[in-house]
Protein backbone atom coordinates (compact mmCIF):
# COMPACT_ATOMS: atom_id res chain seq x y z
CA UNK A 1 0.00 0.00 0.00
CA UNK A 2 2.72 2.39 0.97
CA UNK A 3 4.89 1.58 -1.95
CA UNK A 4 1.96 2.08 -4.28
CA UNK A 5 1.27 5.45 -2.76
CA UNK A 6 4.86 6.53 -2.94
CA UNK A 7 5.17 5.21 -6.45
CA UNK A 8 2.20 7.23 -7.56
CA UNK A 9 3.55 10.34 -6.02
CA UNK A 10 7.03 9.98 -7.35
CA UNK A 11 5.46 10.04 -10.78
CA UNK A 12 3.59 13.20 -9.89
CA UNK A 13 6.56 14.74 -8.14
CA UNK A 14 8.68 16.14 -10.98
CA UNK A 15 5.63 17.45 -12.82
CA UNK A 16 4.39 19.33 -9.84
CA UNK A 17 7.68 20.52 -8.49
CA UNK A 18 8.47 22.56 -11.57
CA UNK A 19 5.39 24.61 -10.86
CA UNK A 20 3.93 24.37 -14.37
CA UNK A 21 1.54 21.51 -13.78
CA UNK A 22 -1.68 23.27 -14.80
CA UNK A 23 -0.40 24.12 -18.26
CA UNK A 24 0.91 20.63 -18.87
CA UNK A 25 -2.43 19.11 -17.97
CA UNK A 26 -4.25 21.43 -20.35
CA UNK A 27 -1.93 20.65 -23.23
CA UNK A 28 -2.84 16.96 -23.30
CA UNK A 29 -6.59 17.39 -23.33
CA UNK A 30 -7.70 18.90 -26.67
CA UNK A 31 -7.08 16.14 -29.20
CA UNK A 32 -6.50 12.43 -28.79
CA UNK A 33 -3.00 11.16 -29.43
CA UNK A 34 -3.55 7.72 -27.99
CA UNK A 35 -1.39 4.91 -29.26
CA UNK A 36 -2.75 1.37 -29.18
CA UNK A 37 -1.00 0.61 -25.92
CA UNK A 38 -2.20 3.80 -24.33
CA UNK A 39 -5.73 3.08 -25.53
CA UNK A 40 -5.61 -0.34 -23.92
CA UNK A 41 -4.35 1.21 -20.70
CA UNK A 42 -7.11 3.78 -20.71
CA UNK A 43 -9.68 1.08 -21.39
CA UNK A 44 -8.50 -1.07 -18.50
CA UNK A 45 -8.39 1.97 -16.24
CA UNK A 46 -11.90 3.05 -17.17
CA UNK A 47 -13.44 -0.43 -16.81
CA UNK A 48 -11.80 -0.94 -13.44
CA UNK A 49 -12.74 2.55 -12.31
CA UNK A 50 -16.33 2.08 -13.44
CA UNK A 51 -16.77 -1.25 -11.70
CA UNK A 52 -15.26 -0.08 -8.46
CA UNK A 53 -16.26 3.55 -8.28
CA UNK A 54 -18.62 4.96 -10.89
CA UNK A 55 -21.32 2.26 -10.84
CA UNK A 56 -21.55 2.02 -7.02
CA UNK A 57 -21.57 5.82 -6.68
CA UNK A 58 -24.30 6.11 -9.29
CA UNK A 59 -26.31 3.45 -7.48
CA UNK A 60 -26.04 5.38 -4.22
CA UNK A 61 -27.15 8.60 -5.85
CA UNK A 62 -29.96 6.84 -7.72
CA UNK A 63 -31.22 5.29 -4.49
CA UNK A 64 -31.04 8.66 -2.77
CA UNK A 65 -32.74 10.41 -5.66
CA UNK A 66 -35.88 8.29 -5.42
CA UNK A 67 -37.30 10.57 -2.79
CA UNK A 68 -36.65 13.61 -4.96
CA UNK A 69 -35.33 16.80 -3.41
CA UNK A 70 -37.68 16.44 -0.48
CA UNK A 71 -35.77 13.31 0.56
CA UNK A 72 -32.59 15.35 0.96
CA UNK A 73 -34.37 18.19 2.71
CA UNK A 74 -36.07 15.81 5.14
CA UNK A 75 -32.79 14.15 6.00
CA UNK A 76 -31.05 17.43 6.71
CA UNK A 77 -34.00 18.91 8.57
CA UNK A 78 -33.63 16.28 11.25
CA UNK A 79 -31.76 18.06 14.05
CA UNK A 80 -29.93 14.96 15.13
CA UNK A 81 -28.63 14.31 11.62
CA UNK A 82 -27.69 17.95 11.16
CA UNK A 83 -25.74 17.87 14.43
CA UNK A 84 -23.92 14.75 13.24
CA UNK A 85 -23.06 16.40 9.91
CA UNK A 86 -21.77 19.52 11.67
CA UNK A 87 -19.66 17.52 14.08
CA UNK A 88 -18.23 15.28 11.37
CA UNK A 89 -17.38 18.06 8.92
CA UNK A 90 -15.91 20.39 11.54
CA UNK A 91 -13.82 17.65 13.10
CA UNK A 92 -12.66 16.46 9.69
CA UNK A 93 -11.62 20.01 8.75
CA UNK A 94 -9.83 20.48 12.05
CA UNK A 95 -7.97 17.20 11.70
CA UNK A 96 -7.07 17.99 8.10
CA UNK A 97 -5.61 21.33 9.16
CA UNK A 98 -3.61 19.65 11.90
CA UNK A 99 -2.38 17.06 9.42
CA UNK A 100 -1.26 19.72 6.95
CA UNK A 101 0.89 21.27 9.67
CA UNK A 102 2.11 18.25 11.56
CA UNK A 103 2.25 15.97 8.52
CA UNK A 104 4.45 18.41 6.60
CA UNK A 105 6.75 18.80 9.58
CA UNK A 106 7.06 15.03 9.99
CA UNK A 107 7.79 14.65 6.28
CA UNK A 108 10.41 17.42 6.50
CA UNK A 109 12.08 15.84 9.48
CA UNK A 110 12.12 12.43 7.82
CA UNK A 111 13.66 13.74 4.60
CA UNK A 112 15.98 16.54 5.65
CA UNK A 113 17.22 15.58 9.08
CA UNK A 114 19.36 12.72 10.26
CA UNK A 115 18.73 11.30 13.65
CA UNK A 116 18.80 8.03 15.48
CA UNK A 117 15.66 5.95 14.87
CA UNK A 118 14.73 7.78 11.67
CA UNK A 119 14.23 4.58 9.66
CA UNK A 120 12.05 3.11 12.40
CA UNK A 121 9.88 6.23 12.57
CA UNK A 122 9.58 6.15 8.82
CA UNK A 123 8.12 2.65 8.98
CA UNK A 124 5.86 3.29 11.96
CA UNK A 125 4.12 6.20 10.23
CA UNK A 126 2.13 3.67 8.22
CA UNK A 127 0.90 1.66 11.18
CA UNK A 128 -2.36 3.62 11.52
CA UNK A 129 -3.08 2.49 7.94
CA UNK A 130 -2.53 -1.14 8.70
CA UNK A 131 -4.31 -1.35 12.04
CA UNK A 132 -7.95 -2.43 11.79
CA UNK A 133 -9.81 0.69 12.84
CA UNK A 134 -11.74 -1.06 15.59
CA UNK A 135 -8.41 -2.04 17.15
CA UNK A 136 -7.32 1.57 16.86
CA UNK A 137 -10.45 2.54 18.79
CA UNK A 138 -9.66 -0.06 21.42
CA UNK A 139 -6.09 1.13 21.85
CA UNK A 140 -7.14 4.77 22.06
CA UNK A 141 -9.84 3.88 24.57
CA UNK A 142 -7.35 2.21 26.87
CA UNK A 143 -4.98 5.19 26.54
CA UNK A 144 -7.47 8.03 26.85
CA UNK A 145 -10.33 6.33 28.70
CA UNK A 146 -11.07 6.31 32.43
CA UNK A 147 -7.96 4.26 33.19
CA UNK A 148 -5.77 6.54 31.14
CA UNK A 149 -2.13 6.16 32.11
CA UNK A 150 -1.63 9.63 30.63
CA UNK A 151 -4.33 11.24 32.75
CA UNK A 152 -6.34 12.34 29.70
CA UNK A 153 -9.99 11.38 30.04
CA UNK A 154 -11.12 12.05 26.52
CA UNK A 155 -13.27 9.00 25.82
CA UNK A 156 -16.90 9.78 24.96
CA UNK A 157 -16.18 13.49 24.38
CA UNK A 158 -15.82 15.37 21.07
CA UNK A 159 -12.07 15.28 21.74
CA UNK A 160 -12.27 11.54 21.22
CA UNK A 161 -13.54 12.14 17.70
CA UNK A 162 -10.61 14.48 16.96
CA UNK A 163 -8.18 11.99 18.41
CA UNK A 164 -9.47 8.99 16.47
CA UNK A 165 -9.63 10.91 13.21
CA UNK A 166 -6.13 12.31 13.70
CA UNK A 167 -4.86 8.80 14.35
CA UNK A 168 -6.30 7.20 11.23
CA UNK A 169 -5.45 10.10 8.89
CA UNK A 170 -1.90 10.83 10.07
CA UNK A 171 -0.03 9.06 7.24
CA UNK A 172 -1.77 10.79 4.33
CA UNK A 173 0.01 14.15 4.28
CA UNK A 174 3.31 12.63 5.38
CA UNK A 175 3.29 10.07 2.60
CA UNK A 176 2.27 12.51 -0.12
CA UNK A 177 4.76 15.23 0.86
CA UNK A 178 7.74 12.99 1.59
CA UNK A 179 8.55 11.84 -1.99
CA UNK A 180 8.14 15.36 -3.39
CA UNK A 181 10.45 16.73 -0.76
CA UNK A 182 12.99 14.04 -1.60
CA UNK A 183 12.92 15.11 -5.27
CA UNK A 184 13.22 18.78 -4.38
CA UNK A 185 16.68 19.96 -5.34
CA UNK A 186 18.63 21.58 -2.54
CA UNK A 187 20.54 23.50 -5.29
CA UNK A 188 17.57 25.79 -5.84
CA UNK A 189 17.44 26.70 -2.21
CA UNK A 190 21.19 27.24 -2.10
CA UNK A 191 21.00 29.43 -5.18
CA UNK A 192 18.25 31.47 -3.60
CA UNK A 193 20.27 31.80 -0.41
CA UNK A 194 23.37 32.89 -2.34
CA UNK A 195 21.27 35.58 -4.01
CA UNK A 196 20.40 36.88 -0.57
CA UNK A 197 17.00 35.31 0.12
CA UNK A 198 16.26 34.79 3.79
CA UNK A 199 15.19 31.37 5.15
CA UNK A 200 11.65 32.64 5.34
CA UNK A 201 11.65 33.82 1.74
CA UNK A 202 13.05 30.50 0.58
CA UNK A 203 10.33 28.68 2.50
CA UNK A 204 7.60 30.95 1.18
CA UNK A 205 8.72 31.32 -2.45
CA UNK A 206 10.37 27.99 -3.16
CA UNK A 207 9.55 25.20 -0.74
CA UNK A 208 5.87 25.77 0.01
CA UNK A 209 4.88 26.30 -3.66
CA UNK A 210 6.67 23.11 -4.64
CA UNK A 211 5.04 21.13 -1.89
CA UNK A 212 1.57 22.66 -2.27
CA UNK A 213 0.19 20.07 -4.71
CA UNK A 214 1.39 17.24 -2.52
CA UNK A 215 0.07 18.82 0.66
CA UNK A 216 -3.29 19.45 -1.01
CA UNK A 217 -3.47 15.86 -2.22
CA UNK A 218 -2.71 14.59 1.27
CA UNK A 219 -5.20 16.97 2.82
CA UNK A 220 -7.91 15.85 0.41
CA UNK A 221 -7.24 12.21 1.24
CA UNK A 222 -7.27 12.84 4.94
CA UNK A 223 -10.47 14.88 4.81
CA UNK A 224 -12.25 12.26 2.73
CA UNK A 225 -11.10 9.54 5.07
CA UNK A 226 -12.15 11.51 8.15
CA UNK A 227 -15.74 12.24 7.12
CA UNK A 228 -16.36 8.56 6.43
CA UNK A 229 -14.63 7.08 9.48
CA UNK A 230 -16.62 4.59 11.50
CA UNK A 231 -14.61 1.77 13.07
CA UNK A 232 -12.30 3.68 15.39
CA UNK A 233 -15.06 6.03 16.54
CA UNK A 234 -17.80 3.59 17.34
CA UNK A 235 -16.08 2.48 20.51
CA UNK A 236 -14.30 5.65 21.51
CA UNK A 237 -16.79 8.45 20.92
CA UNK A 238 -19.79 6.98 22.71
CA UNK A 239 -22.12 7.87 19.81
CA UNK A 240 -24.27 10.17 21.90
CA UNK A 241 -26.79 12.05 19.76
CA UNK A 242 -25.97 15.77 19.40
CA UNK A 243 -22.64 15.37 21.14
CA UNK A 244 -20.41 12.69 19.73
CA UNK A 245 -22.49 11.00 17.06
CA UNK A 246 -20.91 11.11 13.60
CA UNK A 247 -22.50 10.77 10.19
CA UNK A 248 -21.50 7.17 9.62
CA UNK A 249 -23.34 6.12 12.78
CA UNK A 250 -26.41 8.04 11.60
CA UNK A 251 -26.24 6.24 8.28
CA UNK A 252 -26.09 2.91 10.07
CA UNK A 253 -29.12 3.89 12.13
CA UNK A 254 -31.06 4.62 8.95
CA UNK A 255 -30.06 1.26 7.50
CA UNK A 256 -31.00 -0.54 10.69
CA UNK A 257 -34.46 1.00 10.34
CA UNK A 258 -34.74 -0.25 6.76
CA UNK A 259 -34.52 3.33 5.55
CA UNK A 260 -31.99 2.89 2.77
CA UNK A 261 -33.17 5.97 0.95
CA UNK A 262 -32.30 8.33 3.80
CA UNK A 263 -29.01 6.49 4.27
CA UNK A 264 -28.18 6.99 0.60
CA UNK A 265 -29.32 10.62 0.73
CA UNK A 266 -27.07 11.37 3.70
CA UNK A 267 -24.20 9.48 2.08
CA UNK A 268 -24.54 11.47 -1.13
CA UNK A 269 -24.66 14.72 0.82
CA UNK A 270 -21.33 13.75 2.37
CA UNK A 271 -20.01 12.95 -1.11
CA UNK A 272 -20.87 16.49 -2.18
CA UNK A 273 -19.17 17.91 0.93
CA UNK A 274 -16.07 15.89 0.11
CA UNK A 275 -16.16 17.05 -3.50
CA UNK A 276 -16.48 20.70 -2.49
CA UNK A 277 -13.56 20.45 -0.08
CA UNK A 278 -11.37 18.60 -2.56
CA UNK A 279 -12.07 21.17 -5.29
CA UNK A 280 -11.41 24.01 -2.83
CA UNK A 281 -8.11 22.41 -1.85
CA UNK A 282 -7.15 22.13 -5.50
CA UNK A 283 -7.89 25.81 -6.10
CA UNK A 284 -5.82 26.83 -3.09
CA UNK A 285 -3.03 24.56 -4.20
CA UNK A 286 -2.92 26.06 -7.70
CA UNK A 287 -2.84 29.53 -6.24
CA UNK A 288 0.01 28.74 -3.90
CA UNK A 289 1.96 26.84 -6.54
CA UNK A 290 1.68 29.73 -9.01
CA UNK A 291 3.12 32.16 -6.51
CA UNK A 292 6.45 30.34 -6.53
Amino acid at each position, binding site marked *: MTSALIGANVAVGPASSDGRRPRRVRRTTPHSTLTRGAGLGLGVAMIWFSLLVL*IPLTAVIAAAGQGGWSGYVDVLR*NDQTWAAVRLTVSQALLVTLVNVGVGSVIAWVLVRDNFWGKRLLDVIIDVPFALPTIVAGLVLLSLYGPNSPLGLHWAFTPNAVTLALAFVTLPFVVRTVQPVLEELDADVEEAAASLGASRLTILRRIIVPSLAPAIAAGAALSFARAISEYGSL*VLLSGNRPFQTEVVSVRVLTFIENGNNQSAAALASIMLVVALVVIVALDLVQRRVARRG
Partner: protein
Amino acid sequence: MKKTTKAAMAASITGVLALTGCSTSGGGDDAGTTVGVNAFSVMEAANEPVFDDFEGTDAGAGVRFQTSYGASGDQSRAVVAGADADVVHYSLETDVTRLVGEGLVAEDWKDNDTSGIATSSVVVFVVRKGNPDGIETWDDVVEPGVEIITPNPGSSGSARWNILAAWAHITGNGGSDEEARAFITSLLTNTIALPGSGREATTAFTDGSGDVLLSYENEAILAKQSGADIDYVVPPDTLLIENPATVTVDANDTAKAFLAFMTSPEAQADYAQSGFRPVIDGVEIDDVAGANDPADPFPTPQVLFTIDDTFNGWAEAADLYFGDGEGDNPLGIITELQQTTGQVGEE
Protein backbone atom coordinates in the same frame (compact mmCIF):
# COMPACT_ATOMS: atom_id res chain seq x y z
CA MET B 1 -43.04 3.24 -1.96
CA LYS B 2 -40.95 1.72 0.73
CA LYS B 3 -41.02 -1.62 -0.97
CA THR B 4 -39.86 -0.27 -4.32
CA THR B 5 -37.05 1.59 -2.60
CA LYS B 6 -35.97 -1.60 -0.95
CA ALA B 7 -36.22 -3.52 -4.18
CA ALA B 8 -34.20 -0.90 -6.02
CA MET B 9 -31.56 -0.85 -3.32
CA ALA B 10 -31.43 -4.64 -3.23
CA ALA B 11 -31.21 -4.73 -6.99
CA SER B 12 -28.36 -2.24 -7.04
CA ILE B 13 -26.54 -4.11 -4.30
CA THR B 14 -27.01 -7.47 -5.97
CA GLY B 15 -26.01 -5.91 -9.26
CA VAL B 16 -22.74 -4.85 -7.79
CA LEU B 17 -22.27 -8.12 -5.98
CA ALA B 18 -23.35 -10.28 -8.90
CA LEU B 19 -19.89 -10.57 -10.35
CA THR B 20 -18.31 -11.73 -7.13
CA GLY B 21 -21.38 -13.59 -5.98
CA CYS B 22 -21.39 -16.13 -8.79
CA SER B 23 -18.77 -18.27 -7.19
CA THR B 24 -20.44 -18.54 -3.78
CA SER B 25 -24.12 -18.74 -4.64
CA GLY B 26 -25.58 -21.92 -6.01
CA GLY B 27 -24.16 -25.15 -4.74
CA GLY B 28 -26.58 -25.13 -1.81
CA ASP B 29 -29.04 -27.81 -2.79
CA ASP B 30 -27.07 -30.23 -4.86
CA ALA B 31 -24.85 -31.63 -2.10
CA GLY B 32 -27.70 -32.12 0.36
CA THR B 33 -25.23 -32.33 3.21
CA THR B 34 -24.08 -28.72 3.27
CA VAL B 35 -25.97 -26.43 5.61
CA GLY B 36 -25.43 -22.70 5.35
CA VAL B 37 -25.84 -21.10 8.76
CA ASN B 38 -26.26 -17.33 8.83
CA ALA B 39 -26.37 -16.05 12.40
CA PHE B 40 -25.60 -13.15 14.71
CA SER B 41 -22.08 -12.78 16.10
CA VAL B 42 -22.41 -14.32 19.55
CA MET B 43 -23.53 -17.63 18.07
CA GLU B 44 -20.11 -18.28 16.56
CA ALA B 45 -18.72 -19.83 19.73
CA ALA B 46 -22.11 -21.06 20.99
CA ASN B 47 -22.84 -23.04 17.82
CA GLU B 48 -19.64 -25.12 17.79
CA PRO B 49 -20.75 -27.76 20.34
CA VAL B 50 -24.22 -27.82 18.76
CA PHE B 51 -22.69 -28.56 15.34
CA ASP B 52 -20.63 -31.36 16.88
CA ASP B 53 -23.66 -32.90 18.57
CA PHE B 54 -25.77 -32.63 15.43
CA GLU B 55 -23.13 -34.50 13.46
CA GLY B 56 -23.59 -37.33 15.94
CA THR B 57 -27.27 -37.75 15.02
CA ASP B 58 -28.63 -39.77 12.09
CA ALA B 59 -29.85 -36.72 10.20
CA GLY B 60 -26.59 -34.92 10.74
CA ALA B 61 -24.13 -37.62 9.74
CA GLY B 62 -21.51 -36.22 7.37
CA VAL B 63 -23.04 -32.74 7.32
CA ARG B 64 -20.82 -29.81 6.46
CA PHE B 65 -21.62 -26.40 7.93
CA GLN B 66 -20.94 -23.23 6.01
CA THR B 67 -21.15 -20.47 8.57
CA SER B 68 -21.41 -16.73 8.42
CA TYR B 69 -21.53 -14.55 11.52
CA GLY B 70 -21.92 -10.83 12.01
CA ALA B 71 -24.22 -8.12 13.34
CA SER B 72 -27.77 -9.44 13.18
CA GLY B 73 -29.15 -6.68 10.95
CA ASP B 74 -26.17 -6.86 8.58
CA GLN B 75 -26.51 -10.62 8.30
CA SER B 76 -30.19 -10.37 7.48
CA ARG B 77 -29.60 -7.64 4.89
CA ALA B 78 -26.85 -9.74 3.32
CA VAL B 79 -29.31 -12.63 2.87
CA VAL B 80 -31.78 -10.25 1.23
CA ALA B 81 -28.98 -9.16 -1.10
CA GLY B 82 -28.37 -12.77 -2.12
CA ALA B 83 -26.03 -14.33 0.44
CA ASP B 84 -26.50 -18.08 0.63
CA ALA B 85 -28.24 -19.29 3.78
CA ASP B 86 -30.28 -22.31 4.80
CA VAL B 87 -30.64 -21.71 8.52
CA VAL B 88 -30.89 -18.13 9.79
CA HIS B 89 -30.57 -17.26 13.47
CA TYR B 90 -30.88 -13.61 14.50
CA SER B 91 -31.03 -11.61 17.69
CA LEU B 92 -34.23 -9.83 16.72
CA GLU B 93 -37.45 -10.98 15.11
CA THR B 94 -37.52 -7.99 12.75
CA ASP B 95 -34.43 -9.38 11.03
CA VAL B 96 -36.39 -12.54 10.15
CA THR B 97 -39.46 -10.50 9.22
CA ARG B 98 -37.30 -8.71 6.66
CA LEU B 99 -36.68 -12.07 4.96
CA VAL B 100 -40.38 -12.95 5.10
CA GLY B 101 -41.11 -9.66 3.34
CA GLU B 102 -38.70 -10.65 0.56
CA GLY B 103 -40.24 -14.11 0.20
CA LEU B 104 -37.07 -15.81 1.46
CA VAL B 105 -38.71 -17.26 4.57
CA ALA B 106 -42.17 -18.85 4.75
CA GLU B 107 -44.96 -16.76 6.27
CA ASP B 108 -45.71 -19.46 8.85
CA TRP B 109 -42.15 -19.70 10.20
CA LYS B 110 -43.35 -19.17 13.76
CA ASP B 111 -45.67 -22.19 13.70
CA ASN B 112 -43.67 -24.55 15.89
CA ASP B 113 -43.32 -25.52 19.54
CA THR B 114 -41.13 -22.57 20.44
CA SER B 115 -42.85 -20.01 18.20
CA GLY B 116 -39.74 -19.72 16.08
CA ILE B 117 -37.46 -18.94 19.03
CA ALA B 118 -34.19 -20.88 19.27
CA THR B 119 -32.30 -19.18 22.10
CA SER B 120 -33.26 -16.80 24.85
CA SER B 121 -31.73 -14.64 27.55
CA VAL B 122 -32.74 -11.77 29.82
CA VAL B 123 -31.67 -8.14 30.16
CA VAL B 124 -29.25 -7.76 33.10
CA PHE B 125 -27.11 -5.10 34.77
CA VAL B 126 -23.38 -5.66 34.50
CA VAL B 127 -21.62 -3.94 37.41
CA ARG B 128 -18.14 -3.58 38.85
CA LYS B 129 -16.81 -6.45 40.93
CA GLY B 130 -18.67 -6.63 44.24
CA ASN B 131 -21.33 -4.18 43.02
CA PRO B 132 -19.86 -1.13 44.84
CA ASP B 133 -22.79 1.10 43.90
CA GLY B 134 -25.34 -1.42 45.15
CA ILE B 135 -27.24 -1.52 41.86
CA GLU B 136 -30.04 -4.05 42.23
CA THR B 137 -33.13 -2.59 40.56
CA TRP B 138 -34.06 -0.38 37.62
CA ASP B 139 -34.61 2.52 40.00
CA ASP B 140 -30.99 2.26 41.18
CA VAL B 141 -29.84 2.59 37.58
CA VAL B 142 -31.50 5.96 37.02
CA GLU B 143 -30.23 7.48 40.29
CA PRO B 144 -28.47 10.78 39.49
CA GLY B 145 -24.75 10.28 38.96
CA VAL B 146 -24.87 6.64 37.91
CA GLU B 147 -23.03 6.32 34.61
CA ILE B 148 -24.71 3.94 32.18
CA ILE B 149 -23.31 2.28 29.08
CA THR B 150 -25.70 0.54 26.72
CA PRO B 151 -25.29 -0.41 23.08
CA ASN B 152 -26.76 2.05 20.57
CA PRO B 153 -30.41 1.15 19.83
CA GLY B 154 -30.09 3.05 16.57
CA SER B 155 -27.31 1.00 15.05
CA SER B 156 -27.62 -2.26 16.99
CA GLY B 157 -30.88 -4.13 16.79
CA SER B 158 -30.23 -6.22 19.86
CA ALA B 159 -29.62 -3.08 21.95
CA ARG B 160 -33.33 -2.44 21.62
CA TRP B 161 -34.04 -5.21 24.09
CA ASN B 162 -32.32 -3.18 26.83
CA ILE B 163 -34.29 -0.02 26.28
CA LEU B 164 -37.57 -1.91 26.02
CA ALA B 165 -36.76 -3.69 29.29
CA ALA B 166 -36.52 -0.28 30.95
CA TRP B 167 -39.79 0.78 29.35
CA ALA B 168 -41.47 -2.45 30.49
CA HIS B 169 -40.27 -1.79 34.04
CA ILE B 170 -42.75 1.11 34.10
CA THR B 171 -45.62 0.13 31.80
CA GLY B 172 -45.48 -3.57 32.71
CA ASN B 173 -45.88 -2.65 36.36
CA GLY B 174 -48.97 -0.51 35.75
CA GLY B 175 -47.25 2.78 34.96
CA SER B 176 -48.44 5.13 32.24
CA ASP B 177 -46.65 5.94 28.99
CA GLU B 178 -45.85 9.38 30.41
CA GLU B 179 -44.10 7.84 33.41
CA ALA B 180 -42.21 5.50 31.09
CA ARG B 181 -41.05 8.47 29.02
CA ALA B 182 -39.80 10.20 32.14
CA PHE B 183 -37.99 7.03 33.21
CA ILE B 184 -36.30 6.55 29.83
CA THR B 185 -35.33 10.24 29.83
CA SER B 186 -33.49 9.85 33.13
CA LEU B 187 -31.94 6.63 31.84
CA LEU B 188 -30.68 8.37 28.70
CA THR B 189 -29.48 11.33 30.73
CA ASN B 190 -27.32 8.97 32.77
CA THR B 191 -26.01 7.27 29.64
CA ILE B 192 -22.39 8.21 28.95
CA ALA B 193 -21.85 6.07 25.86
CA LEU B 194 -23.82 4.20 23.24
CA PRO B 195 -21.25 1.91 21.59
CA GLY B 196 -22.14 0.29 18.28
CA SER B 197 -22.84 -3.23 19.47
CA GLY B 198 -23.31 -5.32 22.60
CA ARG B 199 -19.73 -6.57 22.46
CA GLU B 200 -18.30 -3.09 22.02
CA ALA B 201 -20.36 -1.91 24.96
CA THR B 202 -18.89 -4.73 27.06
CA THR B 203 -15.41 -3.75 25.93
CA ALA B 204 -15.98 -0.11 26.89
CA PHE B 205 -17.29 -1.19 30.29
CA THR B 206 -14.56 -3.71 31.12
CA ASP B 207 -12.07 -1.07 30.07
CA GLY B 208 -13.19 0.98 33.05
CA SER B 209 -15.90 3.32 31.81
CA GLY B 210 -19.28 3.61 33.51
CA ASP B 211 -20.90 2.21 36.64
CA VAL B 212 -23.44 -0.07 35.02
CA LEU B 213 -23.72 -1.74 31.65
CA LEU B 214 -27.12 -2.74 30.33
CA SER B 215 -26.51 -6.06 28.68
CA TYR B 216 -27.75 -9.56 28.06
CA GLU B 217 -27.29 -12.40 30.52
CA ASN B 218 -25.46 -14.54 27.97
CA GLU B 219 -23.10 -11.66 27.17
CA ALA B 220 -22.38 -11.16 30.90
CA ILE B 221 -21.74 -14.88 31.42
CA LEU B 222 -19.50 -14.99 28.36
CA ALA B 223 -17.54 -11.97 29.60
CA LYS B 224 -17.04 -13.64 32.98
CA GLN B 225 -16.05 -16.90 31.26
CA SER B 226 -13.35 -15.00 29.42
CA GLY B 227 -12.06 -13.58 32.68
CA ALA B 228 -13.57 -10.10 32.83
CA ASP B 229 -13.50 -8.67 36.34
CA ILE B 230 -17.21 -7.91 36.60
CA ASP B 231 -20.41 -9.02 38.29
CA TYR B 232 -23.91 -9.02 36.95
CA VAL B 233 -27.32 -8.55 38.52
CA VAL B 234 -30.58 -10.01 37.24
CA PRO B 235 -33.10 -7.29 38.13
CA PRO B 236 -36.34 -8.39 39.87
CA ASP B 237 -38.31 -7.41 36.76
CA THR B 238 -36.76 -7.72 33.33
CA LEU B 239 -37.45 -8.52 29.71
CA LEU B 240 -37.08 -11.92 28.09
CA ILE B 241 -34.77 -11.69 25.06
CA GLU B 242 -35.88 -14.08 22.35
CA ASN B 243 -33.65 -14.91 19.38
CA PRO B 244 -35.55 -16.40 16.43
CA ALA B 245 -34.22 -19.03 14.04
CA THR B 246 -35.74 -20.52 10.94
CA VAL B 247 -34.95 -21.97 7.53
CA THR B 248 -35.10 -20.24 4.17
CA VAL B 249 -37.65 -21.39 1.61
CA ASP B 250 -35.18 -23.41 -0.44
CA ALA B 251 -33.44 -25.05 2.50
CA ASN B 252 -32.71 -28.77 2.21
CA ASP B 253 -33.94 -31.47 4.60
CA THR B 254 -30.70 -31.53 6.55
CA ALA B 255 -31.11 -27.83 7.28
CA LYS B 256 -34.65 -28.43 8.48
CA ALA B 257 -33.44 -31.27 10.67
CA PHE B 258 -30.78 -28.97 12.10
CA LEU B 259 -33.36 -26.30 12.87
CA ALA B 260 -35.40 -28.87 14.78
CA PHE B 261 -32.25 -30.06 16.53
CA MET B 262 -31.48 -26.52 17.72
CA THR B 263 -34.48 -26.64 20.06
CA SER B 264 -33.81 -30.21 21.24
CA PRO B 265 -32.80 -30.75 24.90
CA GLU B 266 -29.30 -31.72 23.77
CA ALA B 267 -28.66 -28.52 21.79
CA GLN B 268 -30.34 -26.34 24.39
CA ALA B 269 -27.99 -27.78 27.01
CA ASP B 270 -25.09 -26.78 24.76
CA TYR B 271 -26.45 -23.27 24.34
CA ALA B 272 -26.92 -23.05 28.11
CA GLN B 273 -23.18 -23.55 28.51
CA SER B 274 -22.74 -20.36 26.49
CA GLY B 275 -25.14 -18.53 28.78
CA PHE B 276 -28.43 -18.84 26.89
CA ARG B 277 -31.62 -19.73 28.77
CA PRO B 278 -33.30 -22.86 27.39
CA VAL B 279 -36.43 -22.21 25.35
CA ILE B 280 -37.97 -25.60 26.28
CA ASP B 281 -38.60 -27.39 29.55
CA GLY B 282 -36.74 -30.43 30.78
CA VAL B 283 -33.21 -29.50 29.74
CA GLU B 284 -30.44 -31.05 31.84
CA ILE B 285 -28.04 -28.20 32.51
CA ASP B 286 -24.56 -28.85 33.86
CA ASP B 287 -22.83 -26.18 35.89
CA VAL B 288 -22.46 -23.05 33.80
CA ALA B 289 -19.08 -21.40 34.31
CA GLY B 290 -19.33 -17.63 34.64
CA ALA B 291 -22.88 -17.61 35.99
CA ASN B 292 -23.47 -15.98 39.38
CA ASP B 293 -24.37 -19.40 40.75
CA PRO B 294 -23.00 -22.02 38.35
CA ALA B 295 -25.27 -24.70 39.88
CA ASP B 296 -28.38 -22.55 39.39
CA PRO B 297 -27.28 -20.44 36.44
CA PHE B 298 -30.64 -19.07 35.34
CA PRO B 299 -32.68 -17.85 38.33
CA THR B 300 -36.22 -16.88 37.41
CA PRO B 301 -36.84 -13.14 37.94
CA GLN B 302 -39.91 -12.18 39.97
CA VAL B 303 -41.47 -10.62 36.88
CA LEU B 304 -40.45 -11.55 33.36
CA PHE B 305 -41.89 -9.37 30.62
CA THR B 306 -42.07 -10.64 27.06
CA ILE B 307 -42.15 -8.73 23.81
CA ASP B 308 -45.46 -10.33 22.87
CA ASP B 309 -47.34 -9.69 26.11
CA THR B 310 -45.97 -6.29 27.09
CA PHE B 311 -45.35 -4.79 23.66
CA ASN B 312 -47.70 -6.69 21.38
CA GLY B 313 -44.84 -8.16 19.37
CA TRP B 314 -41.92 -6.72 17.42
CA ALA B 315 -44.00 -5.91 14.36
CA GLU B 316 -45.68 -3.16 16.34
CA ALA B 317 -42.85 -2.26 18.72
CA ALA B 318 -40.12 -1.70 16.10
CA ASP B 319 -41.78 1.32 14.50
CA LEU B 320 -43.58 2.57 17.59
CA TYR B 321 -40.40 2.85 19.66
CA PHE B 322 -37.49 2.93 17.23
CA GLY B 323 -38.81 4.41 13.97
CA ASP B 324 -36.39 7.05 12.70
CA GLY B 325 -39.02 9.53 11.53
CA GLU B 326 -37.53 9.79 8.04
CA GLY B 327 -39.73 9.71 4.95
CA ASP B 328 -42.69 7.43 5.56
CA ASN B 329 -41.32 6.04 8.82
CA PRO B 330 -42.99 7.20 12.03
CA LEU B 331 -40.82 8.86 14.66
CA GLY B 332 -40.32 6.27 17.41
CA ILE B 333 -40.79 7.16 21.04
CA ILE B 334 -37.26 6.17 22.01
CA THR B 335 -35.76 7.95 18.99
CA GLU B 336 -37.65 11.08 19.98
CA LEU B 337 -36.51 10.84 23.60
CA GLN B 338 -32.92 10.34 22.45
CA GLN B 339 -33.18 13.52 20.43
CA THR B 340 -34.68 15.57 23.25
CA THR B 341 -32.26 14.37 25.92
CA GLY B 342 -29.37 14.84 23.50
CA GLN B 343 -30.33 18.44 22.88
CA VAL B 344 -30.71 19.18 26.57
CA GLY B 345 -27.27 17.71 27.18
CA GLU B 346 -25.82 19.97 24.51
CA GLU B 347 -26.94 23.19 26.13
